[in-house]
């Protein structure tokens, strides 16, 4: 997967990227005392007609997705190490082909960014600068990144989930 990242980057950036990977690999091989695991999965809701003719909504891994289809991502985290992890923050850049709708689940408040991850805040507190220099309130469709900050330390063995909905452009 890291090789995949490399191939996507522009040539001038390869150098720094390689450096980053070396650092990451170094930590991986040294087996960090606290290891957080993060998995990401994408789902969609479909309507299924049962044998009794009733239409039921069912969650399935996202597969039949056309422009306008809503999908949702479930990002699961787990502390697989033996030390508590503090100041845990999960960041998910919104893929460019998707339009952010909202985070799901009230357990952890999300912060969003509308400027490619430079600044984060509640969507209602953010503004977008227009070409003429004026600003307007940010909309969900402006969101480029979504971030969740855990309020307390993640103890060994602890796990949780965060989630957001988006629509295929």
């Amino acid at each position, binding site marked *: 997967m890291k090789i995949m990242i490399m191939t996507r980057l522009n040539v001038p950036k390869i150098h720094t990227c390689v450096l980053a990977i070396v650092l990451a690999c170094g930590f991986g091989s040294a087996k960090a005392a606290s290891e957080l695991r993060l998995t990401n999965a994408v789902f969609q809701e479909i309507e299924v007609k049962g044998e009794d003719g009733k239409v039921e909504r069912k969650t399935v891994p996202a597969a039949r*997705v*056309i*422009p306008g289809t809503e999908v949702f991502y479930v990002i699961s985290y787990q502390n697989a190490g033996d030390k508590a992890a503090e100041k845990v923050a999960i*960041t998910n850049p919104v893929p460019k*082909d998707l339009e952010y709708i909202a985070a799901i689940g009230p357990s952890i408040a999300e912060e969003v960014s509308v400027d490619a991850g430079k600044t984060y805040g509640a969507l209602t507190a953010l503004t977008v600068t227009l070409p003429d220099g004026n600003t307007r309130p940010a909309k969900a469709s402006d969101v480029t990144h979504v971030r969740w900050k855990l309020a307390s330390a993640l103890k060994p063995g602890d796990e949780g989930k965060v989630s957001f909905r988006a629509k*295929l*452009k």
Partner: protein
Amino acid sequence: MKLSSLKYIAAALLMVGAQQTFAAGTLSGADVNNTATINYQVGGVAQPAQPSNTATFKVDRKVNLTVAEVGTADTTVTPGSTNQAVTFTVTNTANAALDFALTVTQDATNATTAHGGTDDFDVTNVRFFLESGATAGFQAGEDTQITFLDEIAADATFTVHVVADIPNAQANGNQSGLTLTATSREAGTAAAQGAAITETAGADTPGAVDTVFADGAGDTDAARDGAHSDDDAFLISAAQITAAKSSRVISDPSNGTTNPKAIPGAVVEYCIAVTNAAGGAAATNVTVADALAGQPVTYVAASITLGATNCTATDGVAKTDAADADEASFAANTTTGSFASVPAGSTVVMQFRVTIN
């Protein structure tokens, strides 16, 4: 200076390319990948960020299209005219390139046509032409005859003229309604109409591009059938020309111009009024001829006038008798006058004088 501005343009173009989004949506077959990252500290020391796996799905094919009449009124035609067009746009609103099969269905007699009224006749020799864009509207010499729309990219709109011939002997106000239906086909190879498209049945095929119909119902097709349709109509608008001839005595040898009588030697003014009935088309190149042979009258030289307000007016424009550019002549004992155009609902007048033998 020139070079740097070129560079600037190139950069701007690249940016446009990079930010290109399709109204029809993300192109089918694209993989949408998503990776999250977790940052944390242990004992106050920042740890390297851990990326998640990449969650991915493949964008399926949304088949969608729109057929829309250009304009909001019937195309007015005259009986017997050829190469008359009603015009539609066909837009590929799918997120993939498609071919579109084209078919025309003519309305049944008495069926309600596109803009009110009922169908009276069918047109003949129906063909499709692709608008070239050189001159707006159908131009037989510029637009290309087609049988289907080939390799239409997502979001692209093409203008299609449905071209037909109008039968003779149709009355004013008669209508011929028709419906253009475009049906999605696989883009396939260029210059060949692709295979029919069916929706992917049953469960999704992960990792493969499935096909979903997303089109709305057209005038004669159902929603989500991969086709779309719109109707339009031809309306007969013929010129209906009538001519009325009248005369009045201008003078006689005994009374002069005071209460002149039609006695030998009297001067009589003939008036021919040509009327094009309201509601039809303008009549062009209308020629009026009146043969005096066999009548006991003699033409008064250089007395033809054209364009008088009415038969008793004297504001007509005098014309020469020679067969020249002035639209009127006298030859072989026949007076002739011509009018370039007689609009619907108007009358034109030719006057000339004779003496009674």
